[in-house]
Every structure is written in structure tokens, then in C-alpha cells.
């Protein structure tokens, strides 16, 4: 003890100066303070510690709710630094179609954005679209895949988003993919089902070109048959079926054959570079996204559409934003009206509509029942049906037995495995869910061929606690180590953020009817680089270290050092936790020291 004290003994310095008194230095004021040149490094403050800070990235709510599990906080962090190429490549790790998703995804990510409680959610879709377009325009390179061709061949039925996604990820994993497409051009729903004002043909083409460049073969006008599944054995090691819902659902009412099919109209309009003008009025029956697309497309070819829906506006399965846009464009909505008959009369179609009424129910969703025998008549020049679609043939529906049911796929484990994906098996029929399905199929097949346990391995690749899967996690990338805990708004230290307006994409709406008619131009514009950087700076970067350096700056023991990666010098870290408290984005945690 004595020795120790001696070692710690501080040399004292008596500093004296002479005070000038007149012209002579006579007065002396001593200054005796403890002063030492011994480094304070001898004081191992780390021995005081009973909790230790760790760098522990967490899951952002946006990533968790993104069906494709995109690493949004990282994408925005890179974008905010102008690192667009890296940001784009980060999207591609989870989603091969950013320019498409930036336009048509219904951005569940924005619904869960923590920024919502602060001012307004980050405009993730605008940024994704910007990066997607930038990647195409500047021909950003695709990072080399770490996998060599493994000699296995996969047949993919359908070149919609699910098929394209499966082909992309499988070829990245070393598989050789052939896509069989029934139509004359690839893209499925992307090409035929989504109107050009939401998704230009050029964008679809550019995105598909990138997948073809990976070595994927797309054979158009090659529908697969039930027999194909038998013949494929020997030629292919697995088949992924994602043919979507090609058959319209029928209403089974008198005069049904007088109706046209909405999807068929969309297909017809998209087939032509210059859709033929139409005129008159049309009724569009249905309340889903397709019904909205049909109505808005009709408006653009010169027709005055009216939407007929048996429930109320708030019950429409179409995304609210789409409904709003349709109404802003001047499309009339006839709620609580169920068609029960169609007749031809004086060159027009006469719809008999059963009036419906809503009865509040205890379960929450109102029950919609006929309002007595009240009916009304609607006379239009055309009637379009858009109440839903179903699989074209029964064998395309995943069998219920002997099938491994995954969140976005159905897997038949057999010598030549078959996986059903896309709309055939997805809980939510959206483009991004279709992409998620393709990715899940690719992972499941890879696990199958590597003789792993499919369900367990996939569970380990989840982003947070949702169903989204991450290829980054599957391949063991750096972001694998983020904790599945989802960062809540309360865990963001908002003192470090300033309120800032959400970017407003340039939208020419509301257009006058005349302007909309015949215009299939993009409704929204892509952001410019400056706005994209500004907007991405709004991101809280929940759960990801963005090198803000707060941990290092606030550490009272100077125990945080940053060479390549930030690290904590445990010799001096006394476990005060200031670094964790001051981390604005919950990218650090405190753990108790082992006893």
C-alpha cells in the first residue's frame, strides 16, 4: 500500500515569480499547486465498471416493414453523403428493382417511420426512385457476386416481379435461371398491369435489362403447362412458379358477358405506344387498386369513368393514396352500389344497382347489406369489371398438403423441388411482396441444395420481428449483426434533430381534365440530387451508426477511439453510459459485466 501510494505520489511544483514593485523585483507571491507530468493513464478507471457499452446496431422500423427488408437507414445514410452508387448497391442487395419500387411500392416503410412522430415521415419512396433512376442513368456497376456458377439450373414460370426477383437472387447465388413467359414481352404485371403514368415502360425495360445481364434467359411466348413440371426433371434442378393471377374473377350476374375485363383494358392500353382514343362514359366495378388503375387509365384515353363499389370509400381495398389521386383527377365514386344486372338499351349499357347500407358491427368493420329493395339505374357506354383475379389454372394453385408453407412461398420438397410464389402465395398482393417472394424462394432453394434447415435458416434471416428477409443477413454481411430489436421513437434522442419539411416531389396535379386526358406521363417527377441529399439527411438513421462521433466526443475518459471502426478502450471505460445515452439513434447498448 505504501509503495502504491509512493508510485501515485504527485510531484509538487512550487512556482514563484517576482512581482514588480516600482522598478525593482522585490515581492514574491508563491504559487503552490499540485501538478504532475505523470500520465493519467496509470489510473485504470475501467476497474470501476460494472456495465459496459457496446456498439450494437438495431433494426429500423422501416426495414422491418419493408417487404423486401431493404436496409433503409443505411441507404439514407449513404445518400445523405452523396454516395448514391453505394446507396443504390445497398438497395440491390435486397431488391433488384429500385426504380420500379420507388414508383409503385406503397411504401409501408413510411407508415412506420419514427420521424412521423417528430414532424413527417421520410419520403423513402422518392429517394428510392431517385436512386433507382440514378443507377440506370449513370450505369452504376453491380458488385461482383461471391458465388461461382454451381451448375444447377432453375426454371422460373412468369417474368413478373416475383420471377424476376427469384432469377436475380438465384443467379447471384450461382444458379443458372431460365424464365418462361407466356406473353410477348417480359415484366408480367409490371408491364401489363400498371399504367404508364405510374410506371413508364422505359423503366421496366431498364430494370429487366439488368437482370438479363446477370445471365438470366427470358423465353417469351413460352407458357408452361402442367406437363412441363414432369418434363423439366432432368433439365432443371428446381422450378419456381409465379404466374400470378391472370384470370379475372367473375361476378355471376345477368348480362355479365356485356362487361369488359379491366386487366385486359390495361394490357391493351400498354401494348400500344399511342393508345387509341375512346369516348363516352364507363362504369368501373370494384374497389381495389386495379379498379383505380382502370378508371384513371380510362380518363387518360378520353372516357369519363364512374367507379361503382358495393362498400364505402373507407372500405376500399385500394391504397388510400391511390383513391385520393383518382378523386382529385375528377373520377366519380358511387359507393354502396352493387350491380345486379346489366342490359343493353339504346346502344348503351344499363346497370341495375342494388343500394347497400352499412350496419355497424361490434367486430369493427361495418357489415354491408342490401338496403331493402332500393335500386338505382346507371347508363354508361362501357362497363369494366375489376373485382379481382385468380389463378388461370388449378394446378398453379399451391397444393395444401405435403407443402412447406413459408410467409411468401409454398415449397414442395421433393427430388426436383417446386416453389410457388408471387400473388399465388403472397398474403399481400403487391409488387414488393412479389419481390420478397422471389427472394424467399431463392434463399429457400439455396438452403435446400446446401441441405440446410429451411425454416430455421430463414427465421435467422429476418429483419427485426417481421416477415421480411435479408439477403445481407443470409450471406453473413456486416449488417448481419444488427440486433432484431426495433428502434422506437422514444429511443431516438430527438434533441439532436431539427424539424425539417418533407420533400415534396414535383407533381403537376391537380391537372385539369383536359390535361389528364391522353397523358400517360409520370405523375410524379424524380427528385434532383440536392433535394435527395436534403431529404435523406432528415433520416434518423434508426439503429445504425452514422459516424456522428457523439460517443467519442462525450466520453469523459477519452476511452472511445475510432481508427477504422469505433472501439471502446475497456481499460479506461468506467461504464458511465454517457456514450449510450448520447447516441442519437440507439446504435449502442449497455450490458452488465459478467459477475
Amino acid at each position, binding site marked *: 500500500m505504501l509503495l502504491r501510494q509512493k508510485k501515485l505520489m504527485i510531484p509538487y511544483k512550487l512556482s514563484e515569480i517576482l512581482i514588480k*514593485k516600482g522598478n525593482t523585483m522585490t515581492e514574491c507571491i508563491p*504559487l503552490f499547486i499540485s501538478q*504532475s507530468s505523470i*500520465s493519467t493513464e496509470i489510473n485504470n478507471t475501467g476497474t470501476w465498471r460494472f456495465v459496459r457499452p457496446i456498439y450494437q446496431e438495431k433494426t429500423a422500423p422501416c426495414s422491418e416493414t419493408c417487404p423486401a427488408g431493404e436496409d433503409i437507414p443505411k441507404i439514407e445514410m449513404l445518400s445523405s453523403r452523396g454516395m448514391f452508387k453505394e446507396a443504390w448497391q445497398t438497395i440491390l442487395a435486397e431488391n433488384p428493382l429500385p426504380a420500379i419500387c420507388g414508383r409503385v411500392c406503397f411504401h409501408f416503410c413510411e407508415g412506420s417511420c419514427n420521424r412521423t412522430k417528430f414532424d413527417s415521415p421520410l419520403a423513402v419512396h422518392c429517394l428510392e426512385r431517385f436512386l433507382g433512376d440514378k443507377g440506370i442513368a449513370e450505369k452504376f456497376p453491380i458488385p461482383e457476386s461471391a458465388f461461382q456458377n454451381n451448375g444447377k439450373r432453375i426454371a422460373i414460370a412468369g417474368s413478373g416481379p416475383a420471377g424476376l426477383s427469384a432469377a436475380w437472387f438465384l443467379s447471384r447465388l450461382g444458379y443458372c435461371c431460365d424464365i418462361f413467359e407466356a406473353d410477348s414481352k417480359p415484366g408480367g404485371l409490371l408491364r401489363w398491369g400498371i399504367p404508364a403514368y405510374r410506371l413508364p415502360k422505359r423503366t421496366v425495360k431498364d430494370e429487366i435489362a439488368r437482370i438479363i445481364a446477370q445471365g438470366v434467359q427470358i423465353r417469351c411466348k413460352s407458357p408452361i403447362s402442367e406437363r412441363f413440371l414432369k418434363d423439366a426433371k432432368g433439365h432443371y434442378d428446381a422450378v419456381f412458379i409465379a404466374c400470378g393471377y391472370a384470370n379475372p374473377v367473375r361476378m355471376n350476374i345477368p348480362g355479365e358477358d356485356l362487361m369488359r375485363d379491366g386487366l385486359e383494358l390495361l394490357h391493351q392500353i400498354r401494348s400500344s405506344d399511342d393508345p387509341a382514343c375512346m369516348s363516352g362514359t364507363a362504369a368501373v366495378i370494384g374497389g381495389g387498386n386495379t379498379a383505380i388503375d382502370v378508371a384513371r387509365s380510362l380518363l387518360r384515353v378520353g372516357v369519363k369513368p364512374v367507379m361503382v363499389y358495393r362498400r364505402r370509400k373507407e372500405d376500399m381495398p385500394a391504397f388510400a393514396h391511390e383513391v385520393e389521386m383518382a378523386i382529385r383527377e375528377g373520377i366519380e365514386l358511387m359507393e354502396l352500389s352493387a350491380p345486379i344486372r346489366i342490359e343493353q338499351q339504346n346502344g348503351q349499357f344499363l346497370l341495375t344497382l342494388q343500394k347497400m347500407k352499412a350496419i355497424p358491427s361490434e367486430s369493427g368493420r361495418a357489415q354491408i347489406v342490401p338496403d331493402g329493395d332500393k335500386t338505382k339505374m346507371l347508363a354508361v357506354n362501357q362497363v369494366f369489371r375489376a373485382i379481382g383475379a385468380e389463378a388461370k389454372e388449378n394446378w398453379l394453385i399451391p397444393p395444401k398438403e405435403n407443402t412447406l408453407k413459408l410467409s411468401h412461398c409454398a415449397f414442395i420438397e421433393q427430388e426436383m423441388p417446386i416453389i410457388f410464389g408471387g400473388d399465388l402465395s403472397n398474403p399481400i398482393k403487391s409488387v414488393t411482396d412479389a419481390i420478397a417472394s422471389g427472394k424467399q424462394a431463392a434463399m429457400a432453394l439455396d438452403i435446400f441444395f446446401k441441405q440446410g434447415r429451411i425454416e430455421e435458416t430463414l427465421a435467422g434471416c429476418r429483419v427485426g420481428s417481421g416477415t421480411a428477409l435479408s439477403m445481407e443477413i443470409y450471406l453473413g454481411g456486416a449488417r448481419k449483426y444488427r440486433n432484431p430489436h426495433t428502434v422506437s421513437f422514444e429511443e431516438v434522442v430527438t434533441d439532436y434533430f431539427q424539424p425539417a419539411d418533407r420533400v415534396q416531389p414535383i407533381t403537376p396535379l391537380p391537372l385539369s381534365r383536359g390535361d389528364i386526358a391522353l397523358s400517360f406521363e409520370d405523375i410524379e417527377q424524380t427528385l434532383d440530387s440536392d433535394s435527395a441529399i436534403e431529404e435523406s439527411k432528415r433520416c434518423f438513421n434508426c439503429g445504425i451508426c452514422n459516424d456522428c462521433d457523439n460517443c467519442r466526443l462525450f466520453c469523459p475518459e477519452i476511452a472511445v477511439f475510432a481508427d477504422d471502426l469505433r472501439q471502446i478502450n475497456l481499460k479506461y471505460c468506467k461504464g458511465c453510459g454517457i456514450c449510450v445515452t448520447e447516441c442519437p439513434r440507439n446504435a449502442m447498448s449497455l450490458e452488465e459485466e459478467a459477475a
Partner: protein
Amino acid sequence: MRQVLEGSHAVSEAVRLAKVQVMSAYPITPQTHIVEALSEYCEDGRMNAKFICVESEHSAMAAVIGAASGGARTFTATSSHGLALMHELLHWASAARLPIVMAEVNRALAPGWNIWMDQTDSLAQRDTGWIQLYCEDGQEVLDTTLLAFRLAETVNLPVMVILDAFFLSHTYEPVDVPDQQDADRFLPPYSPRIQLDTKNPFAMSQMAPPPVYMEMRRNIQVGMEAVPGCFDRIEKEFESIFGRKYGQLETVSCEDAEIILIVTGTAASTSRHVLAELRAQGEKVGILKLKMFRPFPKDLIRQALCNAKKVAVVDRNFSFGASGIFAQEVRAALCNQPNHPPVFGYITGLGGRDVTPEILKQIYQLVKQTPEPVEESVWVGLKE
């Protein structure tokens, strides 16, 4: 140049002229105007200084301690609860021998929330090792602040420049504001005797175990003992440039006085009028205005009071369980002197109550009529 200045701004002007490099403060009434002006000077470039915004007075003092350890000329200002919150670090500043200057506006402490004049806040810090200088008017505030930097840097001890809340801090008076050139002549740039240096790293103010602690404390007292001499010399130099001086204390008509009133702060100015009136009536009264309280100028006090028959101390403060604090100190200074005059203590003007000429005259009559002090403190003007 003569300007009509608020007392608070007399401080700000002196700090500007002193070319302080680092300031840190937390606002509190009635100190706010001082630092408000200074923060503007930093913002608009009139001062080339860093103003560190903090969340408390404790941090403000910590910030200037840090800056002073790095060799910067530093300033802060506070009042009442703010000063009380600084208490721990007041000890640090003096024992680390850092020449920090602080303006302290005398204000009462709560509860019984009260933002007005009362000396108990600064007097409660008398044992912290800070030099304390009390001021009577705006001019004295400016001059004392400027002088405080010279004094602090000479003896390596912090200085508190103390002014009355509102009576002084918020009152406008004509004040002569020196030219920068003259100020520079009086106060050269600070050259620290010890400062932290990244090129030659060392630590200061570490552990001082029993074998050295006492010597260090004694060393602070040696510094304190050098203050009166240094003060007089510095003030002489000040006078030669600016033509004004105040002294550690000032005696008015004390030579033949039978009764001497000891006063501080703005009450000194009131007492000058009372003195003139009483003298005109033939009363043999004198005034001792105490400017320096720490170190306590006991020799000068003994000298000034040796011929008086009675001494009356006017305290605008109180030490509970004892008496007025100035009276205690005066008694202590006299007690070992043979044949010293009796000391009468009067408590008045607490929490912003006026000390009017009538109050002072009443005190004079009380002393005159009372042969011996019966109580340590007589509370004057108490409502029944």
C-alpha cells in the same frame, strides 16, 4: 468618454475593455443584463471572445475554470442562487489559483422568493478564497472590474466584484468609459504563470495528501496577504492613467469623529448625504466605506477606528444564530486591540428594503443614545 450607463453595463464595458477571452454564464435576475450585453459583443464581433452557453451556474464556473487553466482571461457573472450553486467550484477556482473575475449582483436567497438587494449571498461565500470588492456606484463598478483582472492575475486568486441588485445593477448613471488604448496600457494581455499546454502535457490540481495539503492552504493565504499591497500599487497605477481611486476602504470625516458608521455598497452613497446633514448640525460623525472584504483590511480598520468612541456597522445581511456579518468581522478585527471602541450592529435593508437617510439617521441616534451595545444586532425598521 462619459456615457449614461446602467450599472450592469458598466460591468459589461469593463469586461469588453479587459479583452476577456472566454466567458460563460447562466442568466439570473438581476445579473442578466451584464451577460446579455457581453453575448452580443461576442456575436457582433466587438469582442474577440468565446461565450460558452451552459445549463447552470455550476457549469458556468466549471467552464471558466477550464478556460483559465488553459491560460485564458476569463469572466463570469451571477447572483444569489446562482452563486450558491457555484459554491463547490468557487473553492476550486481559488485553490487552483485561477485569476477568474466574476461580477456578483447582491440578491436575496429564497424561500420567500425575492430578487432584490441583500448581501447574504456573497458574504456566505467569504471562506471560499475569493477576493471580494464591494462597489458604490456605476463608475466604481467599471473601474473595479477593470482593476480586478490586474489584481487577480497578479496574485493568482479569483476576484468577485460585487454590486447591489437594482439600486446599482439597474440604475443609469453617467459613467466615464475609458478608451481601449488607456485600458490596454493599464491591463496588458494576460500571461499565465501556469497553463495547460497540449505540447507539454501535464495535469494540475490532483490529489494532495496530508504531507502537502496544509502547505497549499497556507500558500493561498500568503497570496491573500499580498493582496492589500498589490491592490494599492495597482490602484495607484490606475489613478495615474484614469485619475480615480477608491482604496481598500474609504474614510470620510473620521479624523475627529466620535461615532463612525461602517457602510458598504450603495448605502455608502446615501450615508454621505446623511453625514453632511449631521455634520451641519454639529454632530461628530464619520463614515467608513468598506470596499475590500476579502482579504479583510483589518489593519486599516483598526487605524481608522482607533480614535472613535463608538462604531456602528450597517449590515444588509445576516448570519442566523450570530449577527450581521460585517459587524462580526469588525469586532474580530478589534477584539485584541487595547481600548477599542464598542461595536454596535444594525440590521436593515434586507431583501431590497430601502436604506433611507431616515434609517441611517435613526441608527446614528440609536448609537448616540446607547452607552453600551446590549444586543449583537438591532433590527432597524422592523414592522411590528
